[in-house]
């Protein structure tokens, strides 16, 4: 049996900027907290002092590296495809995940623009089924609206059962 072909649609290139902002936003806040917590611990001697001195800087370096590497990896892997039967997604940074949602099971569709998404000018299409939600995280506004309209047309078609 032939393998199902991989989906072919890519995300908007601005997705990289979006994820960089998200990682920096969350990560720098965490780094700030860790610095605040580490400050009083640094007054101790020995191992505690070393960890409290180096730890926050290591974390900061980790966040900065992740903010550069993770979005690039994620964007290079992300593919999506929508047709009359299924929404087909391939995603994941380290673990590759293929998710297929039958269009007949989709209950409704949202377009979501988080603060970061508005800054970089992309939108997420969020698809709701009885079992949960699935999203295409970063499309240009025009593509997102097109996907939403196509899905809206498809899910209006009565189910065969």
């Amino acid at each position, binding site marked *: 049996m032939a393998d199902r072909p991989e989906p072919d649609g890519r995300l908007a290139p601005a997705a990289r900027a979006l994820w960089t902002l998200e990682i920096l936003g969350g990560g720098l806040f965490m780094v700030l907290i860790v610095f605040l917590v580490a400050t009083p611990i640094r007054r101790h001697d020995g191992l505690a002092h070393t960890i409290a001195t180096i730890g926050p800087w290591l974390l900061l370096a980790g966040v900065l590296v992740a903010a550069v590497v993770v979005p690039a990896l994620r964007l290079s892997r992300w593919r999506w495809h929508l047709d009359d039967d299924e929404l087909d997604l391939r995603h994941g940074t380290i673990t590759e995940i293929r998710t297929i949602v039958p269009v007949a099971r989709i209950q409704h569709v949202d377009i979501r623009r988080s603060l970061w998404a508005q800054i970089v000018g992309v939108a997420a299409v969020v698809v709701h089924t009885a079992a*949960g939600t699935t999203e295409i995280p970063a499309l240009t506004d025009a593509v997102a609206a097109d996907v939403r309209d196509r899905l809206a047309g498809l899910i209006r078609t009565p189910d065969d059962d």
Partner: protein
Amino acid sequence: MTTEPQRLHVAAAVHHAVRGLSDIALPLIIGLVAGGRSSSVHAIGFGLLGVIAAAAIGITRWRATTYRVDGRALHFRSGVFSPDETVIPLDRIQAVDTVAGPIQRLFGVIGLHVQTPGGGEEADVTLTALSARAARELRAALGHADDPAHHVPASRRRLSPPALLVTALTAPQLGVLLPVVGGVFGLAQNGLLGAGETEVKNINSMHEVVLIAVALLAAAWVLSFLGAVVAFSGFEVQRAGGRLRLRRGLLQRRAVSVPAGRIDAVQIVESPLRRPLRLVTLRLEITSLGGREAAARTLFPLMHRAEVEPFLETFLPEFAGSIVVDERPPRRARRRYLTKPVLAALALSAVLIALVPAAWPAAPVLVVLAVLSGLDAFAAGGVRLREDDARVVIRARRRGSRVTLVARRRRLQELDVSRNPLQRRAGLATVSIAVARGTRLGVRHVERTLAASVVARLTASRSYT
């Protein structure tokens, strides 16, 4: 047919009164206990006042509740201060079920539960008490004259009292019991250490800890035993035409009617306590039943594993067929099933030994348990998928239980295939499906080719250009 507005049987007043009383009983008791110094005369006085108030509420509510049927709809009016009128068009009525709680049985009356599709409990109408004659007339007027309780269904199966006993005895979920035991140990240790005692290793206090744990475990067991008895007493499943009717309950008889076409999947669960006895529980997976999904979760509480296929054949021919999973993870995947639990056991042992060095003998025990659990997960994993079969069967281990999911192919909510870098190198993949309201089950480390053929068979075939 048009009828004048009619009242329910007067037993409805008693029903409302008792419910009113049980609503105010708790605040009353708390008030009395918190009051503390009040004498028994006070207590009796309060009690009497409560009973009188409840009786007044019951009678008022009974007087305010009426129903009537005109040619097109059932009109149900209830509520004292803000009367609500619910109108259910006759052709929207999905089922009329009989409900009989202790009060109804005491007065020899029955309640009728008028169900609508998709409306949920809120939109349904329950007529709490009707005489047998009024019930018969109402059923006739609603066009649902056949009372499933009096009408011999195509097939029926009841949970026998001995089976109920076994159901209740094996009801506790390990997942519920273990945290209780863990909590007790934690508490006991904190308590002993917090009190500044140094004899934690003292035999007496260790005995106490074990005693407390055993007592709490027993209490949890008794509670879940009673819960199961109340929930599953008189459990009965019937198949009549395209519907399954499920009834159960000790104090309050609950009945729910499920169109077989709404059932997306059946789950066969072998919990750790039941598996050695080769016993299973059958669950229904339904996307939507108008808010009544919870009442229709159990298809049958307990049966022998060998009975499952004949049972499905009789009650749910839509899901009949072999449930043997014949596509299994390859032998080379076995060690991958061991990695995670063994690493977790080692980490847990390290923490344990760091905290309580004397507990080192627990480490090898944990590792052996982890290996056994991994081997069991490997043995459980499998898929059955046939060209000529409208079902897909997936079996895997989930939180200690062996679970078999029999799903309609065309009703899957989602299909996932994931491959981490190690799996990619070994040519393996994890396949999982989601059905109904988010029940997921997946098999780890199957051959990549099997994963691809599952995807190909469960989805519409196509080629992207």
